[in-house]
């Protein structure tokens, strides 16, 4: 416990120091290539599931070929242990993704996101289309913890754990943002939406600052550790936003992805926003974006097209492989010291 609490400040320090040098993080991608061509039951023509960035900067597939892996969350004590939200449930690996066990049973399916509590890393949260699942044994078994969530309207797209204290968790649901301080034993709604909350992120710079994206209320910001939320001005609210990413290397830098609108960036902490689609394909359906915590490189996953990268935070783009892919998520994992 102490160890991990220490680890965090240290982490951000390191990233500053070592920027450009040997990366302090591994990058894991979760997603599918050759999408569209694949329908359930059809022959696979490509590997899907987990990709890991190679030393050369390419991406290597790892483990099983599984087309419906959405995202993963890693055990801070041992990055070979991570949990993946997949179509069939939550899969857990203890050997870096080579072999898997599904911890959920038939009563949980299609988790949309999963997250380990960094301060209680045996505890894992899963966002489910019909609620919320919790494991307290490293993903071996799962129970529902939905006290305080509504009977209907608890479609949960995203779950995020506050790095400052164990059991403090936010859930992005169909009807708003829900919050627990006791490891999901009790939930309460802290923000109401008419449609699904798609992403919730905590600032790497200020642990009290949070951002969220939604399907019908644009982006939201909280400056009080998520207790109150307000709309972010300068962003459209009529189309779904898919996710938000902070730049751990540069305060104020934020990027938001949208299928129908493309990529937005802000370099002033969200006060103003710019569309950064120039250099992206005309059909700039950005499914996900992310920022490399070591280098500040901006990633945009253009759905069905390819992975695009920008080293000037979206001013210019480079087509960077993974053709016809759908990248569901980018996860940067701190490297344990050699």
């Amino acid at each position, binding site marked *: 416990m102490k160890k991990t609490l220490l680890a965090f400040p240290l982490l951000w320090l390191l990233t500053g120091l070592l920027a450009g040098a040997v990366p302090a993080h591994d990058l894991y991608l979760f997603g599918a*290539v*050759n*999408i*569209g*061509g*694949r*329908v*359930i*039951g*059809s*022959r*696979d023509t490509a590997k899907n599931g987990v990709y890991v960035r190679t030393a050369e900067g390419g991406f290597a597939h790892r483990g*099983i*070929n*599984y*087309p*419906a892996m959405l995202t993963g969350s890693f055990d801070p004590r041992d990055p070979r242990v991570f949990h993946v939200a997949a*179509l*069939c*449930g939550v*899969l*857990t690996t203890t050997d870096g993704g080579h*072999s*898997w*066990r*599904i911890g959920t*049973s*038939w009563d949980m*399916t*299609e988790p*949309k996101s999963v997250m380990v509590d960094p301060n209680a890393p045996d505890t894992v949260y899963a966002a489910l*289309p*019909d609620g919320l699942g919790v494991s307290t044994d490293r993903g071996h078994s799962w129970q529902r913890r939905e006290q305080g969530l509504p009977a*209907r*309207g608890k*479609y949960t797209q995203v779950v995020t754990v506050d790095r400052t204290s164990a059991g403090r968790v936010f859930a992005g649901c*169909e009807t708003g943002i829900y919050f627990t301080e006791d490891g999901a034993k009790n939930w309460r709604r802290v923000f109401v939406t008419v449609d*699904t909350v*798609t992403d919730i992120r905590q600032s790497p710079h200020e642990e009290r600052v949070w951002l969220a994206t939604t*399907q019908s209320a644009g982006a939201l910001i909280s400056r009080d550790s998520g207790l109150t939320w307000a709309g972010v001005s300068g962003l459209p609210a009529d*189309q*779904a936003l*898919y996710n938000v990413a902070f730049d751990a290397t540069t305060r104020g830098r934020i990027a938001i992805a949208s*299928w*129908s609108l493309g990529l937005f960036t802000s370099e002033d902490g969200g006060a103003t926003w710019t569309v950064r689609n120039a250099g992206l394909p005309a059909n700039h*359906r950005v499914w996900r974006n992310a920022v490399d915590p070591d280098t500040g490189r901006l990633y945009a996953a253009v*759905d*069905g097209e390819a992975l695009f990268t920008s080293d000037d935070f979206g001013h210019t783009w480079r087509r960077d492989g993974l*053709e*016809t892919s759908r990248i569901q998520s980018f996860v940067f994992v701190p490297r344990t010291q050699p």
Partner: protein
Amino acid sequence: MKKFLALLLLATVAVAQPSYEAPMPGPPPDTRPDTLRRAYLERVNETLDWYLEAIDPAKPLTREQALVKLVRREDADLASQRILELLAEPQSGDMFWMFPWTAIAFAGRDQLSPEARAAIRDAWRTYFPMRGDTENHWVMYYSSLFLMTELYPGEPGETWFNGKSSAENHAEARDFLLHWMDIATTIGQGEFNATHYIGEYAIPMLYLATWSEDPAMRQRGRMLLDLLMAELADNTLHGVLRGPNARTDDNSVIQRWHALATYFSWTMYGHIPPPPHYGGWGIYFAIAAAHYDPPPLFYRIATDREYDREQHDHKRSRRRWRYSDVEMMPVYKTGYIRRDYAVGSYQGGLSDPIQAHVWDVTWAVPDPRGVHNTIFSTHPLSSSRVLQMYFTEYPDWMIDLLASQGKPSYGVPDKILSCSPYEQVFQDLDTIIALYDIPPGIVHQRINGFFSKDLLDVTEAKSGWIFARGGNTYLAYRPLAPYAWEDLLGYRQLPRTGGSGYVWERFRPEGEVDRILVSPHPQNGTIVQAASADEFASFAAFQAAINALPLAFTLQPTPAVKFTTLRGKQVEFTYGAAPVLDGKPVGYTSWKLFEGPHLNAELGARKITISHGRQHRVLDFNTVTTTDYVTP
């Protein structure tokens, strides 16, 4: 999703398919138990033989051919060899991979080479099939997992793809199967009367009945299979599945015979030709079909049409993740079957987001092959919100996706395969009233009525009724708003470019073309009244009778109809209100799980009674008991 039809391995098109190409089958010489049994096995063997005859010595066996060899206990060495080759390739197919390999594992367990058996076993460690997202996916997935973990008990988690031990997987699979059977026998199936997916239930249930070493699971499999086959018998018109379908496709919804369901009608009862390639998946039923004994009682239900019968059933919608106060909408299904035609419907609304078919009048034809023997109307709804209701997905991309996933019609305005929250339907006997109230901004702002190329004497009377003949059936169709005619174009798949999935173009079919009646008015309605030609001296007499029926309707502010049916029933039906029949509001909430001459069950009772005349079979899932009795 419909994808599985695209998957058929038609290695064998060259070979003749006797029953498919033959004239319509006649009745059996008699209906004594041994005759029915013999005829059933002959049909089963025809299916198996078709695969064997297609074997080309120059070509490697298909997976199906290898399986049939094992079932016939021929050339186990050849099959073993071929299985090793097949498993050396990368595997895919998910639950559609699982049940075929389960069948091979069991059919070959006492004849395959140790290497082949080991290869099959290892594939269940190295290949990670997805569980999918539909009722039928899960039934296939868990039935296969249940059986394979029985075949390989006591093995540790690392020997199974999902990391769970044999015991863990077996327990999980059993839990789900019992849970699913529980739902299906208390409030009904979600994928009810599916034109194709019936196979995805029948095949796993047959496998459980045949191969489970747990006698209770064998019995449950048998009982569920009984229920499926009895329901099929009860919902078919001379072998053709008609009426509402939780899920069908653009073709089967009009060429009603052309469905995997017809394979089961044919196999079980033999009174209809099977679909081409025995429906593709049919072979996987055939390989174990000898272990099922269709009760003569079902045969009677399927073939006895010499009386009119009405059946009311309770079903449910697909599970709704969001945008709904209920997880599953109750579906109230009405079926009315006569010798010459059948009328079927549910009350409207969303049962499945993409593939549902709500209502139709389908008429009997001497030979249903190639015939579009049905009439209905629908609201062509295209809504990503509705898709999000049922799929755990983002809004923007799914409509595009659907085309690429083999549902080319989803977004198009002239589609005829659709259900809609803006359609409400009432049926009494052979009268249907469908009302539509489409809010602004909903795509599309029109309704489509399907008029088959096989209709005769289509007459647009000045009364506003459109009259037509189908087979020995007279039809009257009343659009409640102005309309125009369009030819119904087909969908042709184009070569795939890159990773974009299926690509389609519309085309004009050869010869006679179906038409759709397009009525571009958001407040709208359709009345259809059917009758047997035998009931009238002439077509003109029918028209006169219909024109004489008292009918009053308005479309504003919302559609409302007062109509006295051909059967003398007074119907008042206002969009958004409960229909009123002869002064009494229809109380759907009191409907049973099954209620009619052949199938009866209380809601929540887990106990279905199947009857014909003096013969009865009771399936009691509370006590896992099958009871056959004959009333003396």
